[in-house]
């Protein structure tokens, strides 16, 4: 048996693509790769591979549900694709973020105000690597004693999310090594989208994962509260043993399923050219299938693992996934894997809304009204991460905005296309269970809380600061809202065809690779043919706030001597009977951000004058002598500058309806207040 194991492992580690390792059994001695001549080997990525495939995993894991423990072993075939040699390896041990309440994750959680209190003993999670062996070349070299923990980001001695292992000799560029690890994990109560609640398991970031070696050295950050992950691409062969009858969903496609004599089943999954592997298991999933087909795009088999109480929402999940695959595919580039798994997480699992290669978690509620884009919004967003993150693999520790921002922007675009008439505001009452839909309040691409979120924290931090070092709680604003808003702005400024071409080029050039912010900027400038440094300096390297407005609109018959502020008197009645009307418009830059804007002045006779202002000065005055008086003036009439924090002051009219609107809303508010007063009287 052991010999068979060795043969299988050799086949899987040396010759990519590997076969499944489902026949391996846990508990025995770990298989060892045979020696290769010269020690470390030089194994290039196989021809036809879409990625560098320099971090390849063959993993076996067994779930012990009674104790919430994972027993795992893996062989990592890692190739040094940097220009430097390394005499050490660094691994992420993400589960140790919940090993104690002093980890960097826990500390940052407390700073951000998310931490409900110390994790209880039974809710903690950890990963204990029990064996590390170099299995390339010659007899296995036990490196277990050479491991230690490192906290490269903050020096926190209580944080054990990064493990460093010294090698007997350096791995040169293009050299390849095989490392065999064994570990035991305690699965935490679901936290940060991984863990267990009842019999629902979602396993993300669950195995020892090698960091990314760059020319500057190891890029292997600790697990932070506000950021996610970064890893090299490779091939994953994973065999998961779970109780028989439980459903398993995982990154990739199922290769085999085998019932074991001990009442368990081993599921084997495989995926190529991905940088992560997540899986889930539960006895309760409903397993639904559908297929995405669209002219010009490759078909995709969709698998939906649904909670029974959401059975009626299956088609909504599929429709949203189809929308994402279609529009992202048409706009940026096709989804290449041919299959995707949508996981509907269990209620209270805190596992919703997370992306993993070819698998993502959505999230919905038992009561999910049709005209509200939930679960559609999160489904499109997480499916969209297949493009921005899974395929274009930026570093989420350092540049989270690069995928989150692009994806938030793209999600809003898809929702605007596919759910134009079904994106209503809702609020939940009675403990947050009962939704109420406001049929009169439609949400557009900017309303969806992005602008409000950005306005609240526009200057809180610099987006160019590495994401894991953002001011607590700033990541959402900077990575999601602000970035999406300036991408909307860029689209409006450059025009959709140009901007789409920018994104498609960026996607095509950087898929299966690790772009940096400068790579994105470079593509946009190159494709648009414009030097947009002035813009990126403000929105990425600065905290400038944009706010343009009409400071004054004065219009009166020439020679009448009076200057008309907006007065409520009809402008048409003040139009000159035979002479001209003198109009003055003052446009002001209230913020420190500079952006070229249009100014549109409308006159009572229907005439329109459009001015172009570079927006640099603090104010600009325009005067007109026309046969009619002005009725309105508007800066940025097309709302190009989606970052403008105060769109209300962007225009002035000479017939303001503020009083009418205020009266209307006072009446509405009065009904609410009177009703509340009567509620108070209940206690009198």
């Amino acid at each position, binding site marked *: 048996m052991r010999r068979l194991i060795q043969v299988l492992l050799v086949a899987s580690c040396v010759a990519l693509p590997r076969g499944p390792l489902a026949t391996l059994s846990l508990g025995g001695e770990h298989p060892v790769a045979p020696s290769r001549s010269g020690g470390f080997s030089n194994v290039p990525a196989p021809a036809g591979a879409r990625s560098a495939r320099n971090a390849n995993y063959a993993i076996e894991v067994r779930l012990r549900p009674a104790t919430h423990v994972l027993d795992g072993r893996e062989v990592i075939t890692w190739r040094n694709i940097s220009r430097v040699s390394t005499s050490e390896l660094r691994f992420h041990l993400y589960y140790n973020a919940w090993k104690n309440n002093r980890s960097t994750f826990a500390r940052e959680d407390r700073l951000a105000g998310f931490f409900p209190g110390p994790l209880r003993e039974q809710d903690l999670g950890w990963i204990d690597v029990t064996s590390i062996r170099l299995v390339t070349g010659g007899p296995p070299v036990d490196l277990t004693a050479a491991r230690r923990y490192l906290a490269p980001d903050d020096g926190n001695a209580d944080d054990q999310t990064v493990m460093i292992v010294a090698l007997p000799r350096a791995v040169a560029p293009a050299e390849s090594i095989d490392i065999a690890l064994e570990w035991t994990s305690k699965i935490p109560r679901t936290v940060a989208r991984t863990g267990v609640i009842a019999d629902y398991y979602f396993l993300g970031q669950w195995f020892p994962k090698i960091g990314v070696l760059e020319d500057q050295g190891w890029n292997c950050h600790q697990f932070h509260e506000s950021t996610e992950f970064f890893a090299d691409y490779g091939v994953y062969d994973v065999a998961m043993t779970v109780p028989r009858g439980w459903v398993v969903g995982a990154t990739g496609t199922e290769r085999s399923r085998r019932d074991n004599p001990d009442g368990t089943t081993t599921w084997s999954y495989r995926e190529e050219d991905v940088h992560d592997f997540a899986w889930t298991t539960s006895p309760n999933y409903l397993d639904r299938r559908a297929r995405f087909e669209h002219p010009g795009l490759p078909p995709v088999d969709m698998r939906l693992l649904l909670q029974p109480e959401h059975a009626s929402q299956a088609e909504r999940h599929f429709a949203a996934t189809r929308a994402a695959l279609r529009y992202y595919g048409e706009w940026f580039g096709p989804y290449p894997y041919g299959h995707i798994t949508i996981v509907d997480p269990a209620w209270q699992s805190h596992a919703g809304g997370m992306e993993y290669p070819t698998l993502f978690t959505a999230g919905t509620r038992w009561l999910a009204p049709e005209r509200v884009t939930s679960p559609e919004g999160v489904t499109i967003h997480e499916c969209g991460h297949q493009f921005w993150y899974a395929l274009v693999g930026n570093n989420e520790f350092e540049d989270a905005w690069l995928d989150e921002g692009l994806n938030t922007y793209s999600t809003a675009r898809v929702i605007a296309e596919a759910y134009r008439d079904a994106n209503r505001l809702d*609020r939940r009452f*009675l403990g947050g269970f009962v939704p109420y839909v406001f049929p009169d309040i439609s949400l557009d691409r900017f309303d969806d809380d992005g602008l409000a979120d950005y306005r609240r924290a526009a200057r809180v931090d610099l987006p160019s600061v590495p994401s894991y070092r953002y001011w607590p709680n700033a990541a959402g604003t900077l990575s999601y809202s602000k970035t999406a808003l300036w991408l909307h702005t860029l689209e409006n400024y450059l025009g959709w065809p140009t901007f789409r071409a920018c994104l498609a080029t960026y996607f095509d050039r950087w898929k299966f690779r690790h772009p940096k912010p400068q790579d994105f900027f470079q593509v946009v400038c190159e494709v648009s043919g414009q030097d947009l440094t002035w813009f990126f300096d403000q929105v990425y390297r600065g905290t400038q706030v944009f706010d343009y407005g009409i400071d004054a609109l004065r219009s009166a018959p020439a020679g009448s001597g009076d200057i008309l502020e907006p007065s409520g008197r009809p402008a048409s009645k003040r139009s000159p009977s035979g002479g001209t009307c003198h109009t003055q418009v003052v446009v002001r830059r209230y913020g420190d951000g500079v952006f070229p804007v249009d100014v549109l002045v409308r006159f009572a006779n229907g005439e329109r004058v459009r001015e172009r202002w570079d927006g640099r000065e603090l104010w600009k005055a325009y005067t007109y002598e026309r046969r009619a008086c002005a009725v309105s003036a508007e800066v940025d009439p097309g709302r190009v500058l989606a970052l403008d924090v105060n769109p209300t002051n962007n225009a002035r009219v000479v017939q303001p309806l503020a009083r009418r609107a205020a009266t209307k809303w006072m009446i509405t508010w009065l009904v609410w207040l009177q009703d509340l007063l009567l509620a108070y009287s209940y206690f009198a």
Partner: protein
Amino acid sequence: MSVANAFTSGIRRVNHAPSLLVGVWLLTFLAALPLGLQVRAAIAESLGASPAAGAAARGVDYTWWQQFSEEATGPSKAFSPAIVGGAAVIDNLSSIIDNRSHEIAVAAAGFTYAIVWLILAGGILDRYARNRKVGSFAFFSACGGYFARFARLAIVAGLAYVALFAWLHGWLFDGIYPRVTANWTVEWHAFALRVSLYCLFGAALCLCNLVFDYAKVRIVVEDRRSVVGATIGALRFVRRRPGVLALYLIDGCCFAVVMTAYALAAPGARVSPWWTLAAGQAYLLARIWVKLLFYASEVAYFQGSLAHAAHLARPLPAWPDSPAADIADSPPAKD
């Protein structure tokens, strides 16, 4: 007296005193108006000469609304989408049953309104107990006459309500509910539990309210001076007569019908403000009518159930004349 008779008698008593209904509605409107005008001024200032006002006048400009909400102070902080249409009543119900706090200005208005209601309650109960027209002088005399006793009762009731919200609510919804559902993964199971706890808390709240309602009734009808005695008497009355609960339940159903009807039919944001005003005030009139129905039917039930309500507390029919004296003059009041 049967529950049905008390209920129908209560309806007649409320309908025969329309000035009370209109007066309470007017009071409610006027109590809300100052804050409403503040909100109106804030909205008008925020919109200024912006064309967003046009969108807000025609329907909803949500972009402006978000901005306004962020900058709002005082009562304007409570200007949220939850005020639109049927959400208004659901929001208010939810805020009570979920023990959510309100903006200070709004809470102060609610507290003030409750005190005014406390003043009026004596006169209202007195009017329903007499079951005949009384002049405004007699009405306000009764208000004043019972206020001190009602104020003392309010302290006792206040302590009970504080205990309910601070202790029982906290125990149910911050203790039991999260502890029991901590590892639940099926949302509707948790919702079912929460609804059960709402029912439990609501029952406690209603029971408390019922006892203090009857304490007020006994103070008025029997001209009781001791609020403790009245409360104990009310407790005894409630305990011995299950019909009290049935009557409360029927009245409560009326409240639920009115509230549900408005929640379903309430005008949205795109209709004429005058239609919003008409529909909203009609709903509030109906709601006040139901609230008065609670009082009137409880008075009727008490008077019809307890012999001494008509015969024992029999003070001289001198000013401030007691309703018991009225009933003694024309015993017994059969509707």
